[in-house]
């Protein structure tokens, strides 16, 4: 158990990017909040993973961070952020669906963010896009359209697009859940490598994924959901599957299962 504590302390030593304290989140017309007593620290340049049963509000939390919350939802509580400017101007969002525009080719999809705001796509940016497409291993498919690519390739393009935005905070909502096991494994490794210097919040319902990639794990349990910290295995992400991960995975699943029974 000593190793776990070490890993936890390691992640704690990094400066905190966002800190949520006593926060709660719920529908305006409902007394019962979805999330309450939310306490969470998102460390700079670390992966924070949030796990929970479906409907526990983890996606709602992510959408709050992305500035995508509907008007009928109410947020209360403290939020400290060391980011300059508003939070949602500092995020890049990667969803379960690749959300590639079918009318744009790979290159244009990667450069999508330059069509918005006041951004202008320079030659240097184009070179960067080409380099990113190379890094995700699609240099031969640069001019292909999304319908010519496999699911894994499409999610790679989405990863390159997210990296192209070059935002300090990357929000991921089960980005690999629709992929087959091998493709998922490969993409987890690739994301861990390419998103090394970013702060990542990863929502997942796959305990193994969280244990492979995260520097900090939060479980969302109960109703209304509350956050609980969970120890992470030793070593740098992406971790290979070993006995320790299997053991932790078992514990994680047991906790989540108890939560299922409780509801």
């Amino acid at each position: 158990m000593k190793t776990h504590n070490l890993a936890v302390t390691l992640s704690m030593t990094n400066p905190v990017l966002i800190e949520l304290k006593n926060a709660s989140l719920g529908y305006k017309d409902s007394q019962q909040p979805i999330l309450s007593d939310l306490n969470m620290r998102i460390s700079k340049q670390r992966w924070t993973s949030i796990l929970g049963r479906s409907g526990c509000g983890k996606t709602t939390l992510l959408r709050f961070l992305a500035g995508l919350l509907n008007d009928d939802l109410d947020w209360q509580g403290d939020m400290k952020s060391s980011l300059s400017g508003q939070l949602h101007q500092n995020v890049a969002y990667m969803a379960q669906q690749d959300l590639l525009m079918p009318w744009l080719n790979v290159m244009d999809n990667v450069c999508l963010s330059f069509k918005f705001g006041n951004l202008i796509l320079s030659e240097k940016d184009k070179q960067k896009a080409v380099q990113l497409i190379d890094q995700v291993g699609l240099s031969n498919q640069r001019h292909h359209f999304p319908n010519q690519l496999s699911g894994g390739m499409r999610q790679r393009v989405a990863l390159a697009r997210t990296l192209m935005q070059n935002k300090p905070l990357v929000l991921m909502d089960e980005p690999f859940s629709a992929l087959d096991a091998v493709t998922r494994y490969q993409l987890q490794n690739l994301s861990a490598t390419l998103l090394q210097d970013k702060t990542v919040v990863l929502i997942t319902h796959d305990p193994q994924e969280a244990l492979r990639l995260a520097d900090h794990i939060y479980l969302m349990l109960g109703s209304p959901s509350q956050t609980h910290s969970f120890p992470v295995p030793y070593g740098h992400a992406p971790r290979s599957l070993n006995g320790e991960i299997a053991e932790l995975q078992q514990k994680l699943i047991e906790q989540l299962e108890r939560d299922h029974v409780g509801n």
Partner: protein
Amino acid sequence: MLEINVLDATTEAHIAKKKKTIHPLLQGLLTACLLFGLWQLIVVVFAFPPFILPSPHAVMMKLILRIDVLLFHTWITTQEIVLGLILGLTMGLFFALQMLLFEPLKRWLLPILIASQAIPVFAIAPILMLWLGYGIASKVVMAALIIFFPVTTCCYDGLRSTPSGYIDLAKTMSASKWQTLRHIRLPAALPALASGIRVAVVVAPIGAVVGEWVGSSAGLGYLMLQANARMMIDEMFAALFILALFSITLYFITDRLLKRAIHWQL
């Protein structure tokens, strides 16, 4: 070795056969030939007089002899259809955008939209003649009016049903309302708009010809009416033949262009 060759030959023959039956142009020609043959057969067997049902041969002869007159009237009708399409599509797109962007306006525009479809074109045709004259303008408006509803509804539905994920993504990229419309909503609505355009291309000639029937001095509809009054049924059939050929060609050209423009939807 021999066996393999035989196998190759049969597969090749099989593929060639498959290709031949699939080719759409040949298929269309074959259908046309078959219909003409059937037509000729009916004329011969039942001995219809030419003022009831002329033979395809007589119609073809008329087509060749009167080609200058027919082409002149075709040109008029073509102008009406194309201008009507441009006007109707522009109006439909404009209406759909207004309804999308200004939600309260929708309640005011919707009755106009439904009325445009609910009133039969035949009923307002005389009024349009009265207001816009016997020239080309009234037929253009008629064609535009008849395609206005399908275009507007298709376009509006397409603009409204943009996948919410696309909109979310654009929001996290700090897209403005206009940028989202320009780069996300409009291209995402193209497949829906395309089906509206396909319907419009088929229906617009009806509007133009109805307009010509009600009152005109030129156009294929006018020619058909005149030929009918003079019992020149072969000429009427020739005009009808050109009209059908024109509509079908217009549809296939449009379809081809749309498929090329919306290459991701196949």
